[in-house]
């Protein structure tokens, strides 16, 4: 086994999600002890990620939330979201893709690099390490990394939070031998059986002969050892950069308006630039989406007159665009999507060909929007609410939404087709009641309750109207014909 070469590198970022959130925070907030929690079975949430301030206060990974919050009463707790972390892992891969071609995602928090060929390119570990270190500084994460002669060897060391970067396989073997069995990555039962015979470190395992181990622990263990020693390598699935860009970030607190979103937007655009730069692409449109609590999200489409790729340009244009906009509700998350990408050489000189790729309606809409502003096109939607004002509303045009099924209309009571934007006071004597009342008392939850008796009535011109009576008097609210 003298031919072993440390051709693998593993980066382990145990606090990936939290680190990303910390990066979005102001300095003072970042210093607050904070943790991410995950539910394990019925035992209640436990700490899975924590910042330095939390560590200093005595909180540890795996600690029950109850204990953690008793220890630090003002602890900031958020839930851990695996899918968000997976997006981050892809972003991290995207970032490093600029330097390394062969990256395998190792969810939830690891990246594996095949670096054998790169070593030649960079002329050895030191230079490669320096390059990657610089690159990783662009990501706001805490990480451990280790080299190894097999993917498993590198992974175990990094996950055990032992950072050993060395070209020397013997250094790797020595480091591995020190690892406790609990860091072996073997399933719990196998670990326990090893401990049962007094094997407490990987070293004690590596000492025994394959046959002695195989007879007792079966094929799994011999397989494992072969994988660890690099005698056998499972095939890796390497990362392929996506064809379009999509990123969504958690703002961590409610943000009231677009101007306050600029900081987050900057970060997203920075990522976009990395993405575009890596592919030599540019874009002509962006789609920003702000997500609210309990409300449908707000979408802003931004079109650029010419193709752009630099964060500075995109930010400027976005800011100009957003000055005209009002954020209707506080936002919790922000996402950015760049779908139509073009290569930088091929400047789109034919408008026609570009438009052919768009659906006809969308193209029309985008052209009208370009002229009249993006709020100019709206689509009515039915809402489930007893209050007529809330029973339907207009939504900004949304490309994804137009094939959404309409809510069930059969059960809906009789409602006028034309609802007046503002109910108009009427003289009751002018109207003849035909039907009613339908009493609507609802909406206590948002302090805009409605308490009205509705009638279908006919006015002197025999027009059928929808009128109501409340404490303020009589009003016309809509027309049936």
């Amino acid at each position: 086994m003298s031919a072993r070469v440390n051709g693998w590198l593993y980066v382990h970022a145990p606090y990936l999600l939290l680190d990303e959130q910390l990066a979005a925070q102001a300095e003072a907030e970042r210093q607050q002890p904070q943790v991410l929690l995950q539910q394990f079975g019925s035992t209640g949430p436990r700490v899975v990620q924590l910042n330095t301030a939390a560590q200093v206060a005595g909180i540890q990974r795996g600690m029950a939330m109850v204990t953690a919050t008793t220890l630090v009463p003002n602890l900031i707790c958020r839930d851990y979201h695996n899918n968000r972390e997976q997006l981050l892992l892809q972003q991290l891969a995207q970032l490093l893709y600029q330097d390394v071609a062969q990256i395998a995602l190792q969810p939830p928090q690891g990246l594996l690099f095949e670096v054998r060929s790169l070593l030649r390119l960079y002329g050895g570990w030191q230079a490669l390490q320096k390059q990657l270190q610089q690159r990783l500084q662009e990501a706001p994460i805490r990480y451990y990394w280790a080299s190894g002669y097999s993917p498993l060897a590198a992974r175990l060391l990094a996950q055990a939070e032992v950072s050993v970067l060395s070209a020397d396989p013997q250094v790797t073997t020595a480091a591995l031998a020190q690892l406790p069995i609990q860091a072996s990555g073997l399933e719990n039962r196998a670990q326990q059986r090893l401990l049962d015979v007094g094997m407490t470190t990987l070293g004690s395992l590596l000492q025994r002969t394959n046959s002695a181990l195989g007879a007792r622990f079966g094929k799994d263990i011999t397989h494992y050892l072969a994988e660890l020693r690099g005698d056998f390598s499972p095939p890796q699935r390497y990362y392929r950069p996506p064809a379009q860009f999509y990123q969504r970030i958690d703002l961590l607190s409610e943000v009231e308006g677009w101007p306050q979103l600029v900081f987050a937007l900057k970060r997203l655009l920075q990522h976009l630039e990395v993405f575009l730069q890596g592919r030599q692409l540019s874009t002509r449109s962006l789609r920003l989406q702000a997500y609210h609590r309990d409300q449908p999200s707000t979408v802003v489409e931004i079109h650029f007159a010419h193709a752009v790729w630099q964060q500075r340009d995109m930010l400027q244009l976005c800011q100009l665009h957003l000055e005209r906009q009002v954020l209707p509700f506080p936002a919790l998350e922000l996402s950015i999507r760049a779908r139509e990408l073009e290569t930088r050489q091929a400047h789109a000189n034919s408008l026609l060909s570009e438009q052919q790729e768009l659906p006809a309606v969308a193209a029309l809409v985008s052209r009208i929007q370009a002229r009249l502003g993006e709020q100019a096109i709206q689509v009515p939607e039915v809402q489930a609410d007893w209050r007529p004002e809330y029973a339907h509303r207009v939504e900004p045009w949304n490309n994804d939404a137009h094939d959404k099924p309409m809510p069930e209309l059969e059960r809906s009571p009789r409602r006028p087709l034309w609802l007046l934007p503002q109910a108009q006071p009427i003289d009751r004597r002018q109207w003849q009641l035909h039907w009613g009342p339908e009493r609507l008392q609802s909406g206590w939850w948002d302090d805009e309750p409605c308490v009205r008796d509705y009638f279908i009535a006919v006015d002197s011109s025999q027009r059928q109207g929808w009128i109501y009576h409340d404490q303020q008097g009589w009003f016309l609210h809509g027309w049936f014909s």
Partner: protein
Amino acid sequence: MAGLVDRTPPIALNCLTNYSFLRGAAHPHELIETAVQLGYQALAITDECSVAGIVRAHVAARETPLKLLFGSEFQVPELGVCIVIACNRRGYAQLCQLITTARGRCPKGQYEVHVGDFMQHLDECLCLWRPLDNNAVQLHSKPLQQQFQKHGLWLAFSRHYQADDVERYRCYQQYQQQTGLPIVAACEVNYHTAARQPLHDVLTAIRLQQPLAKVRQELLPNQEFRLRDQQELAHCYPLAWRQAAVKVMNQCRFELSELRYEYPAELVPVGRTATDYLRELTYTGAAKRFPKGLRDDVKIKLEKELELIAQLGYEYFFLTIHDIVQYAQQRGILYQGRGSAANSVVCYCLHITAVNPDQIDVLFERFVSIERDEPPDIDVDFEHERREEIIQYIYQKYGRDRAALAATVICYRLRSAVRDVGKALGYSEQELRHYLSRIDRRDHDTPWQQQLQEQVPGLTETPRGRWLLELIEQIRGFPRHLSQHVGGFVIASRTLSELVPIENASMPERTVIQWDKDDIEALKLIKVDILALGMLTAIRKMLQLVHQHHGKSYQLATIPTEDPKVYKMLQKADSIGVFQIESRAQMNMLPRLKPRTFYDLVVQIAIVRPGPIQGDMVHPYLRRRAGIEPVTYPSPAVKQVLERTMGVPIFQEQVIKLAMVAAGFSGGEADHLRRAMANWKRSGKLKQFEDKLIDGMLQRGYELDFAQRIYHQICGFGEYGFPESHSASFANLAYASAWLKYYYPAAFYCALLNSLPMGFYSADQLIQDARRHDIAVLPADIQKSDWDHQLVPMQQQLGLRLGLRLVKGLREEEVRALLQQRPEAGFRSLEQLRELGLSASALQELAAADALQSVSGHRYQSQWQSLTLQVEQLPLFVGVDTTPTDLDTIAAPLECADIAADYRTMGVSVRRHPLALLREQGVLKGCKRASELALCRHQQVVQVVGFVTCRQRPGTSSGVTFLTLEDETGNMNIVIWLATARKFRQAYLTAQLLKVKGIVEIHGEVVHVIAGHLIDETERLSAFGLRSNRSRDFH
């Protein structure tokens, strides 16, 4: 449609209470109270396929002019909604039967009905029908009419100002023309006042498991589903339809008070009267209990009791329990009765209880009382491992249609309310968890809303936050579902389902009735509580061991009483394993209270409870007992009540009695007081008694100060008051187990260990205590151990051989089968164990637990060998000793690794205590052992170190918390002031091995260390791998 002003009284024929879970938004009593205010003449309680709320409604309506009708609403797939109302007792039985049938078809909480169910056996009911559609009317109106011809079938029209009112109105008129059926006005009442609409909407969201924002379509459009007044009704319905409601009301002549409980008759031999028979059984029993004959005073008491029983007609109740305990006796199952009626001479003679009335003659006062006219209360505890046998006996003897468990109504409490309401309002799990963590539920002085507002200031700035607080408070106490009572059986003379519907419990093969214990009590039905108690199992096993190894046979009732040596042991707080007085708090009290007699134990058990502690009764009692404070009584009447507890009320009975003799409460009023005490915090009903109590006492010449103190004590008692009658029964078991601990300690520990899980202490703690009592504890060994722990004769005395039951992951049958085949000379090899049928995994567990030492060497070696035996042997080779192919020798484990593995595999170790090892290593220099503390000077500065075995949750209000540390010589009590706890928060909260620097305080036998410094020493345990938390946190 507008009606004229008329005088037709308002009637509601379709009221849902909150016992239609997540549909009704009012408590039964709220509906009743509002109906009375609005001048309603009648209310039909028609919960969906349930009568779970009717007793509460009945109790609330008892002293009002309101007439109640009892019925139930069903959603019938083919028919629409059918509201079936009982017209008389027979009809009520039919309704109960229908509900039983419908519920029996489905798992807990659901029901299923078909059109066929409404076509038979309902002839004494009437039916209000909300047809599904025209088709249903065409198809089913004729047969339905036929079925309900005696009392009537109506079309039930409801108007709530909805969009389809007119349409439905026309439909109903059409139906009427088609079928000739009358229409009756029947509002759908889901709550009592309009103000409950938000809660109703939230309940709907909870029911649909979606946030409110997503279910707006399912919400009712307005607040008309309340109880409306006469004028509003007149506006909704034509006169004739409202008059039809009067007709419906008049058809119903059933009162819940008609339900008479009938006892199972088979208990009395043919030709005898129950009175006679009970007398005979009692005197036969008396001859056994009092072999020297009855003393005159006891006989007088016995006669008085029998007379009272006959007068109230409770013979069958005693006979029923007698029958059950007889069965337990035959099967050798240990039991003990408790409760107000249990400590009577009759119960002693019937062998229901073993509390000798000679020992405690003051308890008969709260025996069955005529004036209260409440059913007697007897709970019987059985061995926890064998209670199921008793339950099966009851089912077998009376049949499943005659015996069922009472229900327990599970209600919304703060935690569940926050979660459910919060989710409905769209809060995330995380936010709700955060809010919950901000509420200290033991802070009784600050309401939870105030706590939350202080801790989460922005919360009430939004309407949503304000609604959250409001609606949580509203929903608290709402019933959520029915669960099974721990053991309250109702046994009927005939089919039980004619009395109350029976439904499936979540446990398979268990059925519960739709009423809980309060309902049963309100209707004066009888229930027998069949409960499980671990200590009884342990005591039976102790007595068996004593018989087996010492040749002495004792029973609970024949254990020598009032043995001073036993009390002396308890005075030293040597009570680990002793029933009820083994907890840390009880152990602290023992050296202060110094029990010398049985009655002292009765007091000891009752006094270490939140009730007496909150009512500040502990210190006055102790002072008076120690002679520091004079014992005084404000009057002879009070003296009579409080004399036995030195003038300090300690038991619930005394408080009740005090209200009677000192404040002039009648028996009935005192009983109300007792009920109000039980839940005064929730209902706030106790307040109404305050004036009456204080005025009553002032009038009778008591000082205001005394009166206020008594009231304060009653409040303190609250939910936690402990009845003397229960305490006495518990004291009996406490004494019995203490006596066994003193005289037969080996049997005591062995039986306790064989009865786990139970009690306060783990196997590890019990074994340590056994060793401190000089009992040799031998390790689990495949050559010597049984499944259970056993006593083995040693030179001087009996030793304790641990059983294989300790080894985690073993199956009992498998091990027992193996042990049956154990050769005289022991097993020869691991291969032999496998050949005898032991599975590979069990062999590995045994190796890991070091139980194979004498077959194949130390645990590492044994496991190394056992792992080669995983493949099933071919039959060809069975019996042929295969020599191990691999002769590797494996190094023996270090002592600390052995200890760690023992704890991991068995939770105990008979090796040295880890602290002994650490001390040997010299890392605990300068630390006193637990056993040395008592020899210290009072207020000497000391250092101690130990495992944290009991950690009280840090309190906000009290300012002081307690911790128990264990070392190799025993336990130490550490007192930590709030400031110290805060300063060393991390060590205090998370250390498993803790070093404490502090001052030792010695008061007689009570030794404490007042902590000044806490140091986390957990790192020192890493060699032991003892990362698992052995501590009982936050109790």
